[in-house]
């Protein structure tokens, strides 16, 4: 393993964002950290000093120059002093790494927990808003993703989907190469069709795309769950930073007042839920790590309009927290992009999203795997789900 120290000074602000984004300086980067007030990079191959320094210069200029006010928690549920170690470790035999970092296979009890958490978000949250259930594909057309501005704001996260060209010579050639090896076969130049589909990075994008050009008669709440993809390079080694994850969302479309009111209701519901489950953590304002040169303008805009909150759950014994949900306001960004109107005005939108794998990690590390030893509120909700699950007709999802 190679280590290199950058000569670029560590800025006073934006350190976490720079550290995160530095994973994209080169494909060989495996770890980035600060030591003795200097940037350090560990990489699978020796990287040129100039490449590393140029990368840090760009990232520190982009993220280090923005001084946002300190994050003030809206709600805090502090862990008891005695909770200094995980109640249970995440068992790699049941939350099993699969291939590259960030991909996992979940087995019981984690697979059960995922179904429980999904159900409880519907029971505790979606139901209260009368949210209608919709089913979305896990891929999204690239032109729809372009309208969300995701291509320009988060290029580092993109996962492209393609297929071999409809050309018998290409198919024969590819199959012949595959027969000649037991290893992977890379397509050659020109063999892939142009990208028409992308792995969807966020459940709610389908909701807006499906309403393109619509004149909605009234405010609307929708709920959906999809498997989402985000490529985060070496950051996938951070606990809970999955490449593919399950995102249950409740999506609000309507007037600005409606979306703001539902946000306030969501905030209160999150506080009640975290308290009932003794899910220790903080409800904090947050910023998206916009990857482009307009980070400062976007970050200030997002902060001033309180567009993003996250519930960051404590991971006992690690000194770290993990965002298990986020509440987002988008103003009229998607209403404008997809020409969705309510009462003649461009629709405002908002969403409440739960990362179910992250929730499983946080609950297990805080309270363990034995429901009998869980906090009362969590135990009661779990029993409610078990009862509902038992009523489900056999063979039904």
């Amino acid at each position: 393993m190679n280590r290199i120290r950058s000569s670029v000074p560590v800025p006073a602000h934006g350190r976490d964002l720079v550290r995160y984004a530095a994973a994209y300086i080169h494909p060989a980067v495996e770890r980035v950290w600060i030591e003795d007030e200097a940037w350090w990079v560990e990489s699978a191959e020796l990287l040129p000093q100039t490449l590393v320094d140029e990368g840090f210069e760009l990232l520190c200029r982009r993220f280090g120059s923005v001084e946002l006010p300190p994050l003030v928690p809206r709600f805090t549920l502090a862990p008891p002093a005695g909770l200094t170690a995980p109640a249970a470790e995440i068992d790699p035999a049941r939350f099993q790494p699969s291939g590259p970092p960030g991909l996992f296979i979940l087995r019981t009890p984690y697979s059960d927990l995922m179904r429980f958490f999904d159900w409880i978000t519907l029971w505790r949250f979606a139901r209260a808003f009368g949210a209608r259930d919709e089913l979305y594909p896990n891929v999204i057309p690239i032109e729809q993703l372009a309208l969300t501005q995701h291509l320009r704001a988060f290029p580092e996260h993109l996962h492209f989907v393609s297929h071999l060209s409809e050309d018998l010579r290409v198919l024969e050639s590819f199959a012949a190469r595959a027969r000649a090896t037991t290893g992977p076969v890379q397509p050659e130049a020109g063999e892939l069709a142009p990208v028409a589909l992308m792995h969807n990075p966020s459940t709610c994008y389908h909701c807006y795309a499906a309403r393109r050009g619509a004149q909605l008669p009234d405010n609307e709440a929708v709920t959906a769950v999809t498997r989402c993809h985000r490529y985060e390079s070496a950051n996938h080694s951070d606990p809970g930073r999955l490449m593919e994850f399950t995102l249950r969302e409740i999506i609000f479309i309507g007037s600005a007042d409606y979306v703001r009111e539902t946000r306030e209701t969501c905030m209160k519901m999150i506080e009640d839920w975290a308290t009932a489950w003794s899910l220790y953590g903080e409800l904090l304002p947050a910023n998206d790590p916009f990857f482009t040169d307009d980070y400062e303008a976007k970050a200030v805009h997002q902060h001033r309009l309180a567009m993003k909150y996250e519930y960051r759950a404590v991971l006992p014994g690690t000194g770290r927290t993990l965002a298990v949900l986020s509440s987002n306001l988008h103003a009229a960004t998607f209403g404008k992009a997809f020409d969705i109107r309510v009462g003649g005005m461009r629709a405002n939108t908002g969403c409440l999203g739960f990362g179910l794998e992250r929730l499983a990690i946080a609950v297990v590390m805080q309270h363990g795997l034995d429901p009998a030893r869980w906090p009362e509120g969590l135990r009661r909700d779990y029993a409610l789900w078990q009862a509902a699950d038992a009523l489900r007709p056999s063979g039904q999802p």
Partner: protein
Amino acid sequence: MAQAVVADLLDFLRRLDPSNAEDPMLTADVDLIDGGYIDSFGMVELIEFVRSRYGVDLSGADFYEGQMRKVSGIAAAIAAQPGR
């Protein structure tokens, strides 16, 4: 004067973004942020427009608060500048 400034600002916003041009809901008293008529970059461009057109510096103004979220409020802020 105030009506002329309002009309001028509305014209600027229609030119700023093609999707604003034909929108009948873009009026002097609509909330520009809620309505999606202006974003973080639009604010910067609006400040530059007002500076070059009226010689008024609104860079210290808070476009996220109260009447400054509306064209009518911005026009009033321009009119309130000393010497105007």
